[in-house]
């Protein structure tokens, strides 16, 4: 990363690497894509059973791209690479991209640096839905989705819908009211979750692991269902970067600029909530990514959403896939713990070094 950027001419005031990168979002995106590709390869090559890297590449080439190749590897290696690791890494990337993008959107929409994808009750709604799903002793499975996934998805959407209605976000109401409504609804749902956990008996462990977040249950059918939802929401958000830029100036100014503030808010909120709900349905609650990746990117490229949104998507994908890899090498650690342990010190370092002039 550093060598390519260092080759660029130093800027006139600051000579830091990040300062020069700030002017080159396209180069940064290219670096991000290379990083994502490297993460994908690493994620598939490593796990808690060792499969030779040559075999890994040969299996993927042979099975996915029909390379002519003699099968020299055991069947178990093929199952591990294709059925366990590949969907897992891709799911982590999709969720990382979705949460980062949704986080950037929520932060811009609510003009609040502490906003994250879970700020309007998504987390509590999804968790309560999942917990209820775990308590219902009926086994329904469709396309790899059990009751837990479906109820988590529905709970997240429903929570935000309630917040939206209650706070009159559709009007030009104050953002403080929205945030407080989100907090109140979230608290109510969290109380419901605590109650559910109290009576959960043997299912408590499953609820607990859902709250920590994990990609251990990732599978192709789940990915195939959640990926289109994430893709649709992401395209909507990416295509409305200009609206977010206008909203950063304040609702009144944005309206004077000709922006239909109510409609844009609804669309952006809907898209961000959709991708968040699809993410928490497959992975559980993974914190930190959606809060910090947008800030990291913003520290480097500034608050322009036309650069911020796509770069958040790219780096969020790599970051979460990498965190998942670190999480599963020693056995299964909760991925949310890794994202914070790895990400927080790095974020603090950047914040301390480049805090001057940083604003939403």
């Amino acid at each position, binding site marked *: 990363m550093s060598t390519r950027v260092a080759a660029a001419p130093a800027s006139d005031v600051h000579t830091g690497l990040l300062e020069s990168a700030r002017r080159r979002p396209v180069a940064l995106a290219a670096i991000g894509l290379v990083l994502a590709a490297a993460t994908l390869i690493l994620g598939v090559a490593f*796990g*808690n*059973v060792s499969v030779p890297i040559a075999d890994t590449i040969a299996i993927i080439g042979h099975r996915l791209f029909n390379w002519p190749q003699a099968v020299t590897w055991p*069947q*178990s290696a093929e*199952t*591990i690479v294709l*059925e*366990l*690791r590949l969907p897992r890494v891709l799911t982590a990337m999709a969720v990382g991209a979705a949460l980062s993008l949704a986080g950037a959107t929520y932060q811009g929409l609510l003009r609040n640096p502490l906003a994250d994808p*879970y700020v309007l009750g998504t*987390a*509590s709604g999804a*968790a309560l839905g999942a917990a209820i799903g775990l308590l219902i002793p009926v*086994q329904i*499975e469709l396309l790899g989705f*059990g009751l837990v996934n479906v109820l988590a998805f529905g709970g997240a959407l429903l929570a935000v819908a309630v917040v939206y209605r209650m706070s009159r976000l559709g009007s030009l109401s104050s953002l403080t009211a929205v945030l407080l409504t989100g907090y109140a609804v*979230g*608290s109510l749902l*969290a109380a419901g*979750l*605590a109650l559910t*956990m*109290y*009576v*959960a*008996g*043997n*299912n*408590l*462990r*499953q*609820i*607990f*692991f859902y*709250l*920590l977040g*994990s990609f*251990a*249950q990732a*599978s192709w059918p789940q990915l195939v269902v959640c990926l289109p939802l994430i893709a649709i929401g992401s395209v909507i958000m990416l295509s409305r970067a200009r609206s977010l830029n206008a909203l950063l100036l304040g609702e009144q100014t944005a309206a004077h600029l000709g922006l239909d503030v109510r409609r844009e808010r609804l669309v952006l909120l809907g898209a961000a909530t959709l991708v968040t709900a699809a993410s928490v349905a497959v992975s559980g*609650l993974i*914190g930190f990514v959606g809060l910090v990746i947008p800030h990291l990117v913003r520290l480097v490229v500034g608050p322009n959403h036309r650069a911020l949104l796509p770069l958040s998507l790219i780096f969020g994908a790599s970051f979460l896939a990498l965190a998942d890899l670190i999480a599963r090498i020693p*056995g*299964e650690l*909760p991925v949310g713990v890794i994202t914070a342990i790895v990400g927080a010190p790095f974020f603090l370092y950047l914040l301390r070094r480049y805090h001057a002039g940083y604003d939403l």
Partner: protein
Amino acid sequence: MTKRISAAFAAIILFSACQGAGGPTQTPAPVRTDAPLASPTGTPLPQTSATAVPTTPAAPPTVLATTAASPTSSSITVTGDDGTTVTLASAPQRVVSLTPATTELMFELGAGDRLVGRTDYDDYPPEASQVPPVATFQGVEMEKVVNIGPDLVLAGGNNFTSQADIDKMRQLGYPVLVLYAQDVAGVLADISLVGQAVGESDTAAHINDSIQGRIDEVSTAVASLSKPRTFYEIGDDPELYGPAPDSFVADEVTLAGGDPITTTDPAVFSIPLERLVSEDPEVIVLGDAAYGTCPSDVYGRAGWKKITAVEKQAVVPVDDTIVTRPGPRIGEGLAALALAIHPDAQITPPADVPVYCSATPSATP
């Protein structure tokens, strides 16, 4: 965020307190399907497949141990406690065991050398430590299972092994036999079932005979004795935890000649101190002795002074592992529990049991 973390933290504390290190059946069973066990005859139990799923009441009863397949017969069909039937082409040679109880059972069946995977908290017998672990507290490490390629997986029901992991292994093509004993009779049924599945039915029948012998010994010894109100303490931090009504532990206390004091609901583990005081146990059995609770701690607890068991110093530590783990040592566990409740009963004490709290004065009711 803070709420979430604190809730999650509460969860892990609550869970660890309830679960201890024992088997899957420390937790409440919603429905009790089997008849009371203390049959004085010692004959095999009427049914070996305790189907835990109410939607499949018509699941065919499994073949009894005496008529089961031997290793030479061609194919083996067994029905797990989740109602799922598993068919094996021949006696399995690569078995993964996902509960401490089934790991013990495999060794007891003389099939320990066919065990190729276990959980990382299996602690008995010592030879088990040589089998590679493929599951942690958090779940099954699927890559390791695939790498091993088992021809039979023994999993715990009622979410001891998570349903998602069971589904995943079945989807990958591994036969998964789910075991979940709701009471002591269910343990015997599961031992027959596993014996049948691995082609060691005769050994399983011997194990069950000896367990049944222990059960009969205990029920004979306690038959003429009074039934003291007994509280089996599962844990005391952060709340007090005890057996739920109709749970495995409550069933055992009854078999051991006690009158179990339980929580109010099958889904609730915690028992308010007020309830315990009003129920006034005559004996308190410390299932959490293995995790550091001793009678001296109980005697010093605020508000416990007037409980009969405390006044009479009838607080007794037991080895939770043998008492609550639904494995081949359940007969010994029952004997240990009966001796804790009735110290003078004519019961052979179990051998090789760790002694807890030996520094404290011995309990005499």
